[in-house]
C-alpha cells in the first residue's frame, strides 16, 4: 500500500513538472535586454583552506599549522576530477626541529543513473600521497589508493556508500619493519525535514599489518556521526550548521583526502562547523573541534583545531 502510494506520488510529481510546462507561449521573436548567462558544461570549484591545531596534555607535540588548495572540475553531472595539494608543519615542545609534510591527492569519479536504481550511483577512486622529513621514515612516503562506490536516491533522502582504502607506509629506519593499512568505511545517510536536515553515520574498520608500528593494534573500530541542518541564510545566519562526533578508536585513518599518518590512536572527537554564503557561488566554511589521542604507555592528550575553507564555484 505504502509502495503503490509512493509510485502514485512519483507519477504525480512527474506529471506536475510536465504540466507546469504544458502551456507554451511560442513567442519566437528577438527582444533586446535581459540576456541569460551561458551555461557551461563544466562546474569548477576551488577551495583554499587553512588548519591550525594546538595540543593539550601532549608530552612532545605543541601545534600543527597546515594550508592547502583543491581544484575540482565536474562535467555536467556525468564525471569529475579533483586535484589537491597541501603542506603542514608540526611543531614540538622544547625542540627546534619540526615535522614538515607535503600532501597531494588526485581523484576521479563517474556518475551513473540506471533506471532500476531510482538514484545516482557514483564510482570514485582517490590516490593520496604524503611525504615528510620523519627521520624514522615511519610516517613518511605514504601512498594510498581508495576506491568507493556510493548511491544517493533521487529524493535525496537516502545515501549509502562503501569505501576501501589501502595505505602503504615507508619502511622503518628504526628496525620496525614495513606497514600497510587496510580500511573499510561503510556509510549510511538520511535526509529528512524536507531537505532541511541530513544525518550520516560512518564506520571505520582499520587493520594495520604491523602492530609494532600501530601501538600493538591489529584492528581498530570507530564510528562517526554527523548532523547537518540547513537554513535560509539571513545576515549572520549561516546557510548550514554541522555537528560531528567520533567514537571508538582508529589509527592511520584515511578520511576523504586526509591521511591521519601520525602514530597515535585517535580515541574520539567532536566538531562544530558552519557555512555562510559570501556571494552566489562563494561560501565560507569554518569548523572547530577537539580530537582525543592515545600516544601509548598511558599517555593521552587532546588536540583542539580550527579549520577554514573558502569555496568558490564557476
Amino acid at each position, binding site marked *: 500500500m505504502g509502495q503503490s502510494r509512493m509510485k502514485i506520488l512519483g*507519477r504525480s510529481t*512527474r506529471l506536475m*513538472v510536465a504540466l507546469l*510546462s504544458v502551456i507554451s*507561449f511560442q*513567442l519566437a*521573436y528577438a527582444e533586446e535586454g535581459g540576456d541569460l548567462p551561458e551555461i557551461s558544461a563544466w562546474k569548477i570549484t576551488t577551495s583554499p583552506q587553512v588548519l591550525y591545531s594546538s595540543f593539550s596534555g601532549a608530552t612532545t607535540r605543541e601545534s600543527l599549522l597546515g594550508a592547502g588548495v583543491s581544484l575540482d572540475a565536474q562535467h555536467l*553531472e556525468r564525471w569529475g576530477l579533483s586535484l589537491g595539494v597541501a603542506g603542514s608543519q608540526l611543531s614540538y615542545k622544547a625542540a627546534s626541529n619540526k615535522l614538515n609534510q607535503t600532501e597531494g591527492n588526485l581523484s576521479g569519479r563517474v556518475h551513473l543513473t540506471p*533506471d532500476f536504481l*531510482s538514484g545516482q550511483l557514483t564510482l570514485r577512486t582517490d590516490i593520496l600521497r604524503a611525504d615528510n622529513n620523519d627521520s624514522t621514515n615511519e610516517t613518511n612516503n605514504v601512498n594510498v589508493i581508495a576506491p568507493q562506490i556510493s548511491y544517493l536516491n533521487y529524493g535525496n533522502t537516502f545515501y549509502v556508500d562503501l569505501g576501501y582504502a589501502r595505505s602503504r607506509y615507508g619502511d622503518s629506519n628504526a628496525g620496525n619493519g614495513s606497514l600497510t593499512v587496510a580500511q573499510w568505511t561503510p556509510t549510511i545517510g538520511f535526509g529528512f525535514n524536507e531537505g532541511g536536515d541530513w544525518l550520516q553515520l560512518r564506520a571505520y574498520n582499520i587493520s594495520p599489518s604491523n602492530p609494532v608500528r600501530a601501538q600493538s593494534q591489529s584492528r581498530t573500530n570507530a564510528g562517526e556521526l554527523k548532523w547537518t541542518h540547513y537554513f535560509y541564510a539571513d545576515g549572520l545566519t549561516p546557510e548550514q550548521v554541522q555537528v560531528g562526533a567520533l567514537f571508538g578508536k582508529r589509527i592511520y585513518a584515511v578520511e576523504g583526502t586526509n591521511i591521519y599518518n601520525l602514530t597515535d590512536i585517535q580515541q574520539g572527537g567532536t566538531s562544530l562547523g558552519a557555512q555562510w554564503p559570501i556571494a552566489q557561488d562563494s561560501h565560507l566554511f569554518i569548523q572547530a573541534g577537539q580530537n582525543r589521542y592515545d600516544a601509548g604507555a598511558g599517555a593521552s592528550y587532546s588536540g583542539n583545531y580550527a579549520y577554514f575553507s573558502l569555496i568558490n564555484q564557476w
Partner: protein
Amino acid sequence: MKTRKSPIKLFALIALFASSVVSAQGVNKNWQESYAQEASGNYAKAAAAIDLVLQASPSNEFAYLRRGWLNYMQARYNDALRDYDQALRLNPKSQEAQLGRTLPLMGQQRWREAAVEANKVIASSRWDYTAHLRLMVCEEAEKKWEELARHATELSVRYPSDATVLVYLARAEAWQGRIDQAKEAYAKVLERMPSHIEALAYLNRNP
C-alpha cells in the same frame, strides 16, 4: 480490338486496398489504445501500443515523441532519452524533442545538462515559456539564487499574469535572506492565486 482487363490484377488491387485500410485501422487502433491507456494511468500499456506503431512505422517521429513522454511518466528516464534522441535524429529542428529531453534529465537530477538543453531552445525561441520554466527549475535545484531572481524578474515582465514565475522569484529572494522582496513577490502570487499554499505559509511566518 478491345483489351480485356485481367481479373487477377483487379483482384490484387482490391486486396491491396483492403489490406492498407485494415492496416491503417490497426495502426489507428494502436493510437487509440495508447491514449485510452494513458487516460487510465496505465503508461506501460500505453507505451506498448506505441511499440506496435513503431514496428509498422520505424521512422514515425511523433511516435518516438509520444513514447518518450510515456517512458518518462514511468520513470524509465534512459529509455525516454533514447526516444527523444531518435526523434531529434529524425527531425533535428524539433524543439519539442529538445524540451522533451529536459524532463528525464531533470528526473535524473542532471540539472546542468537539462539547463543546457533548455538553453538550446531559448537560443532559437527567445522567450519560450516552457524552456524558461524548466531552466528556472534547474537554477533552483543548483541553488543559483541570484541568477534565478534575475531570470524570474525578466520572465515576469514578459508574462505578468503568471503566478508560477513569481513563486520562483519569491523563493530566490527568500533563500537570499531578502525577506521584504520575498514577501512582495508572494503577495503578487496571492493576487493571481489567492489560495496558494506556499505564499500563504510564507506570509504567515513573516508578517
